[in-house]
């Protein structure tokens, strides 16, 4: 593939029944492009965690996935409350998820650590009261 491909999704903020659908769609698209299984797995994990975080913590946002010859880039952009202390949020086990969310199986505080672990690069920029932007890359 010589051209760059871009997939763009609006992630709905208050619909738990469709949460994760953008990630499921991306997985399907990457399969059709013939991307190898391990790369697809890494992108799926990182994107799902980021997508769910936007739903749970930020009231939704926009997800964009760019596929080039060298890497797959996932950009998640929201206008949620922002992350006060990114270092703390990155720690395994740290979570501010409320009980209602925990009862659905979320809130282990493992999402951001998973995103870090499964990508080659991850950058978070966040401003309290403005929003959060996360850029991740998985090299092919």
């Amino acid at each position, binding site marked *: 593939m010589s051209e760059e491909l871009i997939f763009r999704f609006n992630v709905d903020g208050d619909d*738990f*029944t469709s*949460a*994760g*659908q953008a*990630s*499921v769609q991306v*997985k399907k698209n990457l399969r059709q492009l013939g991307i190898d*299984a391990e790369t697809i*797995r890494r992108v*799926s*994990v990182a994107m*799902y*965690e980021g997508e*769910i975080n936007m739903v749970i913590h930020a009231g939704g946002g926009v997800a964009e996935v760019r596929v080039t010859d060298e890497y797959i880039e996932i950009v998640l952009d929201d206008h949620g409350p922002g992350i006060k202390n990114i270092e703390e949020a990155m720690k395994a086990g740290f979570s501010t998820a409320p009980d209602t969310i925990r009862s*659905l*199986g*979320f*809130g*282990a*505080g*493992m*999402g951001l*650590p*998973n995103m870090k*672990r*499964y990508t080659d690069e991850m950058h978070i920029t966040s401003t309290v009261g403005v929003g959060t932007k996360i850029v991740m890359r998985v090299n092919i």
Partner: protein
Amino acid sequence: MTVEGLTKIIDCSALTMPDPEAEVTGAYIGDLLSWVMGRASEGDAWITIMSNVNTVAVATLTGVSCIILAEGVTLDDEVLSTAKNKGVNVLSTVMSAYDCAVALNGVLR
């Protein structure tokens, strides 16, 4: 061992089995979705008591061969039809997660 083969050997019932030929290659137990997301391997039978639509999404994305709901947990119809549409096998057993894993071990090794 295929998922369909599994349903004939261990004490469980298939709530939906859209992909009966999926190969069961291991097992993972967990209810916290981010742990499962990060640790379950493709082909695993995922033993859990967490049964909502997010369980189905995680199963799709990890590529587990089936979800096994332990302790007699079931799924409501809406989630079940989502699983069916997404090609996710869902089994239910009255066994505990531990007993289910022991039974699986006997079959997989």
